[in-house]
């Protein structure tokens, strides 16, 4: 079953508003692919073009190598799981699951057999005769999955289906979705604004912003080597240090960022001294130590402290510099750090240049306030 999805130069315009800039993308058959982005970034529009609810203004959509651009939604080999699930409330569980089979003219007995298989797959054997309104949130979720899988789609489209569930159930459903995807081998295309969901389940993730794909990569690469400022801020947290390159040594770039000490980080693109660039340090990369530990080059004062269970989040105002966020592993008794990390205390910090990365500032103008907000709340 060929579940490749190819988007070639698809664009979507609603009047003057461009929802999707011309975009090309290949999604492999059997891949768990996610579109990640803030609301309004165009990810749902893209999903609707794949499912057939929208016809792109330009470009074409192909599924399994066949052009689907003009094929109506009911003739596409896709199935969708809606954000609100959209189960048919007047029907029983069986009727819901069998709906797509009934449409295809499959006889009663085969329908029931298939429905029972699917109920087994989603671990709800025996609840076929229940009205869907009597199911719990997690059960509804599974029925929606079973109903979509019943039509044997080549591509399953999931539109933030977990957003209505509570945290525990959501985490559990992530594992289950991934397992179902492995078992069935169907291409899953998943839409979410929740980076946790995208990173834990996906083979590859496309990060979107303002109708444009910013980067397509596997979750690890996305986190370690963001290619744009948007991705660096949206995926995970980052401390940004905009500045100017003063020296290049192999792939290590040294930047003057206005601090007493120059900072060094890895750059995947060649930079020249004098280039404007930004250095990013993730909160968990900081080593925070006592104020008198001269081996640590940077100094600051702790502003706030939040206990988050496995770690402490500190906000530290760097001397002559910005305030940064640092995650410090929390160990009862403080084996690493003799000086207590309490608000008001001075401290010194360091980071490993290999773990910090530098991006040239081509996209600095795209670093608008919205992105800053997203980064702050991430």
């Amino acid at each position, binding site marked *: 079953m060929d579940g490749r999805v190819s988007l070639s130069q698809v664009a979507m315009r609603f009047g003057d508003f461009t929802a999707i800039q011309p975009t090309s993308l290949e999604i492999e058959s059997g891949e768990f692919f996610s579109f990640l982005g803030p609301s309004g970034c165009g990810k749902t529009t893209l999903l609707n073009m794949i*499912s*057939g*609810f929208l016809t792109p203004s330009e470009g074409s959509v192909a599924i399994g190598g066949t052009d689907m651009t003009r094929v109506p*939604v*009911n*003739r596409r080999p*896709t*199935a*969708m799981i*809606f*954000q*609100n699930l*959209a*189960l*048919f409330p*007047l029907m029983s569980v069986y009727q819901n699951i069998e*709906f*797509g089979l009934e*449409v*295809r003219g499959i006889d009663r007995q085969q329908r029931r057999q298939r429905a029972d298989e699917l109920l087994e797959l989603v671990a709800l054997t025996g609840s076929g005769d229940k009205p869907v309104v009597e199911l719990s949130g997690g059960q509804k979720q599974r029925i929606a999955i079973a*109903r*979509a899988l019943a*039509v044997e789609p080549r591509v399953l489209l999931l539109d933030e289906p977990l957003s209505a569930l509570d945290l525990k159930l959501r985490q559990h459903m992530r594992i289950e979705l991934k397992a179902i995807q492995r078992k069935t081998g169907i291409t899953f295309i998943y839409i979410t604004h929740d980076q946790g969901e995208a990173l834990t389940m996906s083979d590859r993730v496309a990060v979107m912003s303002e109708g444009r794909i910013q980067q397509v990569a596997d979750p690890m690469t996305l986190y370690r080597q963001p290619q744009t400022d948007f991705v660096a801020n949206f995926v995970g947290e980052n401390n940004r240090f905009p500045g100017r390159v003063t020296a290049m040594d192999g792939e290590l770039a040294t930047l003057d960022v206005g601090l007493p000490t120059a900072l060094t980080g890895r750059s995947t693109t060649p930079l020249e001294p004098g280039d404007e660039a930004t250095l990013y340090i993730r909160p968990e990369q900081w080593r925070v130590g006592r104020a008198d530990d001269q081996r640590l080059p940077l100094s600051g004062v702790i502003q706030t402290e939040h206990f988050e269970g496995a770690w402490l989040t500190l906000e530290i105002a760097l001397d002559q510099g910005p305030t940064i966020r640092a995650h410090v592993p929390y160990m009862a008794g403080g084996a690493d750090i003799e000086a207590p990390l309490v608000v008001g205390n001075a401290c010194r910090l360091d980071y490993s240049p290999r773990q910090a990365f530098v991006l040239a500032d081509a996209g600095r103008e795209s670093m608008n306030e919205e992105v800053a907000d997203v980064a702050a709340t991430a």
Partner: protein
Amino acid sequence: MWQQLRNRFGVPLTMAIISLMGIWLIVMVLLPQWQMIDYSFHPSLLPAERGGVKDVWSLTNYATFFNNDIHLAIFFKTIWSSVLVTGLTFIVSYPLAYYLAKVATPSQAALCLLLLIIPFWINEILRTFAWYIIFAFRGPLNELLLALGWIDRPIRFLNGDTGVLVGMVYAYILFMVFPLYNAIESLDANQIRAARDLGAGWGRTHRRIVIPHAKPGIATGCIMTFMLAAGSYAVPSLLGSPGSRWFTQIIYNWFFEGGDWNQGAAYAFLLLVLCIVFVTLIMRVFKVGLGDIAK
């Protein structure tokens, strides 16, 4: 209910509300109805004879009806035609209501509703009379059809049932469109999308998803249209022909031409019973309760 009202309005106001409701219900609804039923079981008498020996309970007025073939025929024809009007109104209204509720943009829907409502600012007699003119033997419709070459000679629309049917569908369309619109509007658009996504064509999507959801609205619309059609007087008397007399016209004749209120009351009571039977039947067929309709 008493508790709720008292908590909200206090005792004196609650008493006032409940007694007003009671007075309205008893004086305006129950007593007149009772009077009608009482009339229908008494013979028509001169004022002097009332309360006398002849003033006894009897079924004569009903016997008159069941012994009169023409009146029976008109009665059943009224039922049948009202069902037809209801069906036609539904067929016309459903696509319109669906369009308004799910397809049109808010501004399109507003415009469309305005166009539907404006004609209803004119009174029913005048609106019906407009159709009388349109359907006239040398009227605009015949002229148009002749000009288009679709017919060779003018058609007498007002001779048969056509005029009455069209006039009634037009007169009662809003009473069907609004309940349907309300019902369809409350359907989650994703339900329709999900059905389409699972492969259903438009026919099946409507049959399995939209119509089952809209059932209470359909029932309400059908009941209202049927009641109005069965009880209509203006449309059949203006657009009808002698061959398409409505039962209401017979009732009118008993009251105001024949002067026999007792006989008229019996006929009116039969029409009331018919309507109640129809409402009950529709509620059974659609499996809806009174509560669903009140929504």
